[in-house]
C-alpha cells in the first residue's frame, strides 16, 4: 500500500462529500479497485462508527484501522479533519454568492447525486458474496425499523447481531 495515495483517496472522498456517510461511495469505489478493502470491511467500519460516540463520520477511522492498522486510522482522521475547514472560506464568500440562482441549484444537484451514489453503493454492499436471503431480511427489517425513527441505531445493530448469531451459528 502506498500511504500517500491511501491518504489522498480518503481526502478526495471527504472533500467531495456532505454529511458523515457521503464519502462512502467514493471510498468504496477506490479502495475496492485497488484491492485495499473488501465489501465486508465497509459493513464492519460503518457498524463500529454507529456504535461509538461522536459524529457518525468517524466510521472512516474504523475503516482506516481495518484496512491499514494504526497508520490507516491516523491517515483517515487527518483526511476528515481538513475538509470542514473550508467552511471558513464559505463563511467569507457566502454573502457574495447566496443570492445567485445557480447556487441553490448546484447544491440541490450535488445532494441528488450523493443520494444516487448512496443508492449504488448500498446496492453493491447488499449484493456482496456471503449475504443470502436471511441477510436481505435483516437489511429490509433494518430499513423498515430505522425509518420509524423510534429505535436507536445501536439497538438495531445489537438485534441484527443477535439474529446473526441465531441464524448462522
Amino acid at each position, binding site marked *: 500500500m502506498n500511504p500517500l495515495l491511501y491518504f489522498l483517496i480518503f481526502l478526495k472522498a471527504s472533500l467531495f462529500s456532505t454529511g458523515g456517510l457521503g464519502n462512502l461511495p467514493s471510498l468504496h469505489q477506490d479502495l475496492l479497485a485497488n484491492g485495499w478493502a473488501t465489501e465486508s470491511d465497509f459493513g*464492519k467500519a460503518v457498524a463500529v462508527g454507529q456504535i461509538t460516540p461522536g459524529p457518525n463520520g468517524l466510521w472512516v*477511522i474504523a475503516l482506516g484501522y481495518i484496512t491499514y492498522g494504526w497508520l490507516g486510522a491516523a491517515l483517515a482522521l487527518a483526511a476528515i479533519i481538513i475538509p470542514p475547514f473550508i*467552511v471558513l472560506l464559505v463563511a467569507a464568500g457566502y454573502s457574495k454568492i447566496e443570492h445567485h440562482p*445557480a447556487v441553490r441549484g448546484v447544491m440541490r444537484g450535488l445532494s441528488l447525486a450523493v443520494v444516487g451514489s448512496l443508492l449504488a453503493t448500498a446496492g453493491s454492499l*447488499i449484493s456482496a458474496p456471503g449475504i443470502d436471503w436471511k441477510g436481505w431480511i435483516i437489511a429490509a427489517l*433494518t*430499513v423498515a425499523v430505522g425509518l420509524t425513527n423510534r429505535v436507536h441505531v445501536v439497538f438495531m445493530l445489537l438485534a441484527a447481531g443477535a439474529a446473526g448469531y441465531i441464524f448462522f451459528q
Partner: protein
Amino acid sequence: MIVRHKWLTDEDYVRMWALCTLAPGINQLAFATLIGRKLAGWPGIAATVGGLLVPSSLITALLTAGFTAIQSWPPFQAVLRGVIPATAGLMFMVMINMGRPLVREGLREGQRRLILTFAFILLVGFMIGFLKWPVIGVLLVGSGLGGIFFKAPLFPSKQVEAAAEPAKEQP
C-alpha cells in the same frame, strides 16, 4: 447547550448551521470550527475541534482494534453475518432520509421537477453502480447539471405565459 451559555444567539446558530451544510465533510466539525473561531480565534478552533474529535476518535480506534482482535472467533463471525447486512440497510436508510426532503421539494414544484428529481437519482445510481464511472466525476457533473436544471424557473415558456397572464402569477 451553546445557547444556554449565551455564547451564541439562536440566529447565529441557524446561520452557522446553514453555512456548514454548504461545506464539505462532517458538518459537526465545520460547526465546531465556526464556533471555535467566534469564541477565541484559532486557539478556539483547536479547542472545539480537538474536544469533539480527540476522545471520540480514540474510542473509535480502540473499539475497532478490539473488534479486529476477536473477528476470527466463530461465534462473533456469526454475529457479524447479521450485522453487515444491517449496515447495508442503514445505507439505504441514510439514502432515503437524505432523498426525502429533495423529493418533497420536487413534489411541491410540480410534476416535471419531481420526474427530474427521480431521474437524477436513478441516473447517478446507474452511472456509478453499473457503468462504474468515477464517483467524484459523477458528483461534479451532477452539481453542474443541478445548477442548470434546478436554477429558479425551469421552463422559460412557462415564465412567458405567466408574464402574459399576470392573474395566474406563480408563487
